[in-house]
């Protein structure tokens, strides 16, 4: 009986290899140091503000760091509301467009549409902000008014301080709202989400598609039973990545909302808030304490996007379609 033990392999590296490995190791370490520095600096400065505010940081709505009275309750709720509206807009749009590109569009048009979507994902957010501020702001008012008039009894869709039956009432109460900011952010993240979903749908095994069709399934039955189950991970993961982008979006939101520092649950009403817009608004006039407080708010935002992003990557990697990538 001959038993082979695995041999010890010794690698002799020449000088160029040693230098090369040293250089790339240094590159990797530098990146790690920078990233850890950003995170720990943020945590360190935030802890000063957190120590002072204590648990009230999560419950206080006002933002007056110099008076020692500050908390993220209002801005976090505002951020989540804007992101929720954005996802409600983006999910049907991107799912429909992704299915349209992979299943319904003429074959010749497909690669062109794919390029358009990818290009749109690179359009700067300030451009969407311009569009939202100068176009959508005015044209969405009748829609907002209609929704608040007929669905105002649903909590969150009502508008206070205006009589909906008065046709001459001022419309400014409907502008600069969470709703408008959410729509703009939703349209902004849609190309990214669409691009991820389309990529996943296009990887559906051809054999399974053809099998379903050969068994007599209609196109929709094939999509529902083959494409959508296969692409489930991509749908959830892509939406979550879009959510992460929507939570951290600054400039498009900052251009549209008129910031308030109390929890504004009525999404159609003037006045909204978001963490990123708060930082953009207050960084300049900040004292030492004010800056720490902003860092704490930034850290809370970062923690939120981090959880969403990691959740997305776990969902994608566990799903069937994501196992290969």
């Amino acid at each position, binding site marked *: 009986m001959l038993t082979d033990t695995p041999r010890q392999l010794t690698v002799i590296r020449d000088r*160029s*290899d040693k*230098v*090369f490995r040293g250089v*790339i*190791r240094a*590159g*990797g370490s530098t*990146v790690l140091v*920078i*990233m*850890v520095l*950003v*995170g720990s*600096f*943020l945590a360190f400065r935030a802890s000063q503000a957190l120590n002072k505010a204590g648990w009230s940081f999560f419950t206080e709505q006002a933002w007056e760091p110099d008076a020692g009275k500050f908390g993220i309750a209002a801005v976090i709720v505002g951020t989540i509301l804007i992101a929720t509206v954005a996802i409600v807009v983006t999910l049907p749009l991107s799912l*429909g*467009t992704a299915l*349209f590109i992979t*299943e*319904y*569009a003429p*074959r010749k048009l497909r690669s062109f549409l794919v*390029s*358009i979507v*990818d*290009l*749109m994902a*690179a*359009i*700067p*957010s*300030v*451009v*969407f902000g311009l*569009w939202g501020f*100068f*176009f959508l702001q005015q044209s969405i008012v*009748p829609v907002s008014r209609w929704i608040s008039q007929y669905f105002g009894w649903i909590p969150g869709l009502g508008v206070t301080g205006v009589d909906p039956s008065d046709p001459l009432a001022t419309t400014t109460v409907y502008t600069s709202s969470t709703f408008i900011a959410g729509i703009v952010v939703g*349209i902004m993240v*849609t*190309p990214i989400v669409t691009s991820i979903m389309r990529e996943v749908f296009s990887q559906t095994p051809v054999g399974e598609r053809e099998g379903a069709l050969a068994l007599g399934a*209609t*196109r*929709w039955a094939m999509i529902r039973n083959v494409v959508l189950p296969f692409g489930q991970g991509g749908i959830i993961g892509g939406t979550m990545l879009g959510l992460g982008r929507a*939570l*951290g979006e*600054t*400039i498009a939101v900052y*251009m549209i909302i008129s910031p308030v520092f109390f929890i504004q649950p009525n999404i159609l009403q003037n006045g909204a808030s978001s963490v*990123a817009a708060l*930082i*953009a608004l207050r*960084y300049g006039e900040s004292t030492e304490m004010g*800056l720490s407080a902003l*860092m704490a708010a*930034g850290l809370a935002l*970062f923690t939120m996007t981090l959880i969403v*992003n990691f959740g997305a*990557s776990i969902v994608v990697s566990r799903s069937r379609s994501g196992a290969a990538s």
Partner: protein
Amino acid sequence: MGISNEPKRTLGGIRVGDLLSILGAAVAAFSLTIVLTTQVAPITGGIAFFVLWYLLFVGFYALLVSIDDSKTFVIDRVVAVLVTSLGVLLFSILIFVIVFVIARGAEALPYLSFYTEDMGFAGPLDPISVGGVGHAIAGSLIQISIALAITIPLGIAAAVYLNEIPGRFSRFVRTIVEAMTALPSIVAGLFIFATAILMFGLPKSGLAASLAISVMMLPIMIRSADVVLRLVPQTLKEASIGLGASQWKTVWNVVLPTSRSGLTTSIILATARGIGETSPVLLTSGFTAELNVNPLESPMVSLPLAIFQFVKSPEPTMIARGFGTAAVLMLLVLTLFVIARIIGGMTPEKSSRARRRRAEFFGWFATITRKVTSPIRRRITNVEEPS
């Protein structure tokens, strides 16, 4: 063998009946909408009209299909209409956003001075023919160049490291980089504002803005470069190492050339992201109306920031300038994107075919020259031979 002679049937395409029922439903819905909005319930506004028409259209279409087909087919047809209209809706919104921005900026775009001059002598009440955004174009290009000088070497080295030296440490680095892609860009700006500007006393300047952009771009670039490098076939690497090449030679001669187009694409897409981001620049670069080419001191404005400042003004000319600047920024991003597409479209196969064609051309060129020069050379050698 008769089967192979049968002509190929077309499976796709639209049947005449389908087309007619779509048209019929559309016309019927349109008529009913007019009746409803004018006679029954006076509803004003284009959006309301359109929504009502669309709902009626889908209803009528379902009704028409259900005359001939069973429920399964009705659902299939209705879903097809819904999905197609969602796709068309998204594309029209996106195209509308772009057309809207260009149309509002069209007033500013024809002037040459808009691209070359700065706003130093142009006040809010001056006509558009005075002043321009040359300073912002220069600022954007300078800032992105510095950011690229930092991120390309670091990013590519880190991505190569993640792939070439696997282990627990590189897995840790990968996780951290992945986490950092979630960093909101405004927080990256806040970090540079708090460290470089407030702690180390760097003035608000182009350099500070570049640092903020770099912090934001670095994780994005590393992540996509990492994916691209992972796609290099393991067999290629093993072949190279099996032939006795060192790791450095393998990376330099096999890994990087194979993934060159992918790496370039990841760099360009990160650049497009970096050049369009406003929030990190807002906190770090300061604002100026004049051209400044020195990134080390005094404020330096970039395109997105210029847009943001222009549209804050209530003057219509300033707003038109803002839209014009947005059009310039989009053109810049579009150019980068097209370059990325062209390079990304080059598969290794294609580029090696191009190389072969080039080699053939040079070979042909060499033959011609040899043919032309050989009599001369022979004469020279003939002359030289006796001596």
